[in-house]
């Protein structure tokens, strides 16, 4: 019935193969167009699938497994090359191909001076293909395949500028983290296979409720191991350190992979396996807890960064925390809804930031920006739209999705006061850090007059406008999304109405914005005062330093202390240390093995002898 849905996957794959083989032969422009075309067509096919799916009765939309052919069959075990078409996968297709297409178009212009233009588009297509494979998979096996390929594509794209050492290092770090996640997933899949004798979603999900009690040890083990993969991919504590570093890659990559699509794979995984997770409420609490903690933790970090992309990266982590909070407390469709709105406004923010960086000739430090609202009016508007959505200003999409999660974190069955408090606190931080960037970047006067920022050309602006439009209006589709995804999750999520709580949450967000404004405005006043008091010669100097000093003293110091604590103790000495140490030890062992490999035959013979004596010892005495 949906067999043609295979084209959604095949088109980007063809794009990747074609571009990587013929990339050097065809002109640059055509390569870019080809890359966009495949994803665009894929999006159109997705729309067709969506249309057909909507034509069906809601309960008939589930479980359309389209098998291409049987890949492996050995005895009782079969592995089909199959995709699953249901509302959840189509929903993800829409986001991946839709946002992906816009970002492809944006990249046409953004990357136009890069000598390896076609390679970039080849990688982008590879990424789109892998991501689609991940969400289309009808069994855990192809899920993991897609999972691994997404990691690979991300590695290639982060390290795209290979002459940049920091990018290569960041790519490696991301890869290592992702492999850790992959191993967790594979072990989970093995356990699933051992228990259900199948890897297919259909079989596993239908058998699980009968086979296992709630909170069965095996179920907890499986869900937790799957979570290792989910957390690694979605940059949740403690597997988060790669995401900020991944900003070393080109900005469209950050927008596509590290904001809109790949990092949400973890949320998708939990939603997809909701049957298993519902059997393991302990794991659900764990997810919600980690999500909430990450939301706050990343928020504090975001408040002290000066790199425009890093701020947005931390904000991504924080928003992913929200999504995990949502799926953790069992309101899966709210999590997916936030995933969608976040994809729009975060892609918008990243692309706007990219436009800023483009206009500023590669500058990423917000301290060196300022006053861009005149030079880049369009980007200013789009960034502002993204920022208000992210901050959850009423009637924007971010408002609807975030409110739904915050409400549920109190009222839902698994919700409680602590989750709610953390969510609200994080909402306040969100408003603060994103508007801090906004004020720094677009308001006031330029802090580096020697650069002449310019507005980006139309081809970059168009995707921004589309995304801005979507970010503003898609919030009203909340009910539709819930209805659409409802059959997958068994029931639609309940919308809780609670005016008091809602007001508090909104106020928290607005409060954050206001604080940012106040801080910024105050410093403006000081600046004016300083200007009058001191000779204009020092103007520039103050402009550069004094603001920061005041800013520092008033607000940042305490926050920074916390942020620095996290960064130093948790990141540098905690997670990073562990990761580095593991790498180091592996190398040491490797060197040790090489050391034994002395080249001396007698040593070899001796080692054989020792091995033999040991083996015989075991046989004789044990």
């Amino acid at each position, binding site marked *: 019935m949906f067999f043609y849905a295979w084209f959604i996957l095949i088109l980007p794959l063809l794009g990747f193969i074609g571009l990587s083989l013929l990339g*050097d032969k065809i002109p640059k422009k055509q390569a870019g167009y080809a890359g966009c075309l495949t994803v665009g067509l894929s999006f159109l096919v997705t729309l067709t699938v969506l249309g057909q799916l909507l034509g069906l009765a809601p309960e008939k939309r589930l479980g359309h497994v389209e098998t291409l052919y*049987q*890949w*492996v*069959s*050995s*005895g009782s*075990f079969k592995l089909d090359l199959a995709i699953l078409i249901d509302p959840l996968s189509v929903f993800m297709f829409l986001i991946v191909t839709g946002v992906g297409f816009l970002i492809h178009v944006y990249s046409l212009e953004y990357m136009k001076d890069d000598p390896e233009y076609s390679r970039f588009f080849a990688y982008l297509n590879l990424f789109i293909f892998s991501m689609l494979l991940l969400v289309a998979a009808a069994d855990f096996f192809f899920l993991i*395949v897609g999972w*691994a390929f997404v990691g690979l594509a991300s590695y290639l794209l982060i*390290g795209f500028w*290979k002459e940049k050492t920091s990018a*290569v290092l960041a790519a490696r770090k991301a890869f290592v983290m992702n*492999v850790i996640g*992959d*191993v967790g997933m*594979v*072990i989970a899949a*093995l*356990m699933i*296979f*051992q228990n259900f004798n199948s890897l297919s979603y259909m079989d596993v999900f239908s058998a699980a409720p009968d086979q296992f009690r709630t909170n069965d040890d095996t179920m907890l083990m499986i869900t937790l191991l799957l979570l290792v993969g989910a957390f690694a991919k979605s940059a949740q504590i403690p597997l988060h350190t790669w995401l900020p570093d991944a900003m070393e890659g080109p900005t469209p990559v950050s927008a596509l992979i590290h904001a809109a699509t790949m990092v949400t794979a973890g949320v998708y995984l939990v939603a997809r396996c909701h049957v298993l997770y519902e059997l393991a409420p302990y794991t659900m609490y764990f997810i919600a807890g980690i999500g909430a903690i990450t939301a706050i933790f990343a928020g504090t970090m975001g408040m002290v960064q000066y790199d425009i992309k890093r701020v947005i990266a931390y904000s991504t982590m924080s928003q992913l925390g929200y999504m995990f909070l949502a799926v953790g407390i069992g309101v899966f469709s709210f999590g997916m809804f936030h995933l969608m709105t976040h994809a729009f406004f975060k892609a918008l923010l990243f692309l706007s930031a990219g436009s800023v960086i483009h206009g500023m000739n590669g500058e990423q430090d917000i301290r060196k920006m300022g006053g861009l609202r005149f030079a880049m009016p369009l980007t200013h508007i789009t960034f502002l739209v993204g920022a208000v959505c992210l901050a959850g200003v009423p009637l924007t999409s971010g408002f609807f999705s975030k409110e739904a999660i915050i409400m549920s974190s109190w009222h839902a069955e698994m919700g409680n006061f602590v989750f709610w408090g953390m969510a609200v606190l994080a909402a306040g931080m969100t408003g603060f850090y994103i508007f801090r960037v906004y004020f720094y970047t677009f308001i006031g006067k330029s802090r580096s007059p020697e650069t002449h920022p310019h507005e980006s050309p139309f081809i970059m602006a168009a995707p921004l406008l589309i995304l801005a439009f979507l970010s503003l209006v898609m919030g009203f589709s909340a009910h539709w999304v819930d209805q659409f995804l409802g059959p997958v999750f068994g029931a639609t999520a309940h919308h809780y109405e609670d005016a008091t709580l809602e007001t508090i949450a909104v106020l928290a967000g607005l409060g954050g914005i206001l604080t940012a404004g106040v801080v910024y405005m105050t410093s403006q006043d000081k600046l004016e005062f300083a200007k009058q008091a001191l000779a204009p010669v020092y103007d520039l100097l103050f402009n550069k330093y004094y603001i920061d000093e005041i800013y520092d003293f008033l607000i940042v110091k305490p926050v920074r202390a916390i942020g620095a604590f996290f960064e130093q103790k948790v990141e540098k000495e905690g997670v990073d240390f562990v990761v580095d140490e593991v790498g180091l030890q*592996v*190398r040491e*062992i*490797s*060197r040790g*093995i*090489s050391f*034994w*490999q002395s*080249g001396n*035959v007698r*040593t*070899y*013979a001796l*080692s*054989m002898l*020792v*091995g*033999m004596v040991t*083996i*015989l010892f*075991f*046989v*004789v005495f044990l």
Partner: protein
Amino acid sequence: MEPILAPESIDLVSIAPVLVLTVFAMGVMVLDLFAGKSKTLLAFVSIVGLLMTAISAFAKVGLPVFSFNDSYTVDHLSVCFILIFTLSSALAILISIDYNDRENIKAGEFYSLVLFCTVGMIVLASSTDLIMIFLGIEIVSICLYVLAGIRRNHLKSNEAALKYFLLGAFATGFLLYGMALMYGATGTTNLISIADLIKSDGVKSEPLLMIGAVLLLIGFGFKVASVPFHMWAPDVYQGAPSPVTAFMAVGPKAAALVAFFRVFAETLPEISFFWETLLVTISILTMFIGNLGAIMQTNIKRLLAYSSVSHVGYILMAVLVKNTLGSASLIFYMVTYAFMIFGVFAIIIMLGRKGDENLEIEGYSGLGFKHPVIALCMTVFMLSLGGLPPLAGFVAKFYIFNAALQEGFLMLVIIAVLNSAISLYYYLKVIVYMYMKEPVREFQLSITPITLFVVALAIIGTIQLGIFPDPILSLAQQ
């Protein structure tokens, strides 16, 4: 007096592959007299011989057939492995033609030794008698000692041959002693009789049998390069001429593994309680030492040596599985492994030139820009060795893990998966060098049609077996 050997068990058709190949091996030697300077003719005659051998493997119908008083078996396993051996030997000969020209290896015996070695492998894969197994192993080993040292003016090659010989002799001692003890414990060298005797509890001295089995395990462990008997592998792989290294890594190893399988999985499953734990430990150690050892290597051949050690760790799981699923996964793994290894070595040979083999991984920097197609092929092989889907290496690993899982070796499989992840690190290192570093040297490739043919064949095999593994899988499963 009754004839000792029943006339009906003298079945020359059953040993047809051995006979055909022996005739060709000797024929090649005689032909060497008339061949003149160029030995290419010999190579092609050898390949014809291997082809004939492969065909003659199907001479027997109605498998399994036991002949010569049950000391020789033609069954599905042996037929499949004869095909693998002939394939790998043919590929080895193909990649050695240009290499021998380039490196001035003028010995026509090279080809006949490869053929004799293949004879040994066939014997090893088909025999169900300890004496035959011993002879098979020795035929294979002696050929390899000579082949490893065939570049006589090359110090590393000499070193490799000598080391391999000394340690190999040491291991042979264990092997022979083990066989003697087993003979003492059971009164027969025939594996089928031994299995029957164990089943009917007729063994007088179980400890003697166990010690014998352990010594055999050690002997085989040396031949397949499993930890702690792997130390020879990196040095020998590095020193031997590249085609010989590739040959060694596939055929003889596969042969030893079949014998391993025959002795342990088919003959001694009844007393698996003691060797199973041992083999699990050895398998785990082999994976870890192989993978961890490979990480710091800078020489591509040493890297592949360690990688092949780690692959043995995975393959030993097939022996642990014991049933037909085990033998099927063993067959499939070795087929894919043959394609991958010969592909990689064909490329390694291409990248070298006379007097400069270019074996440091650093020398591969920037290959992706200068020679994109070759780099792409290398990438495919590396990813396949690392076990990434949809390539053959993945299916092979998956299949073997699946078999082990069905027998309940969950922990072992988890460790194996972990090791696969570690192994990606060094396989990707090669790819990173090719695509992400600036060239440090000039590339002067010695590309010839024959080597290209091998690479193409290997690529097709690696991808085909990855995407459509079913035909071969069902063949292996019969």
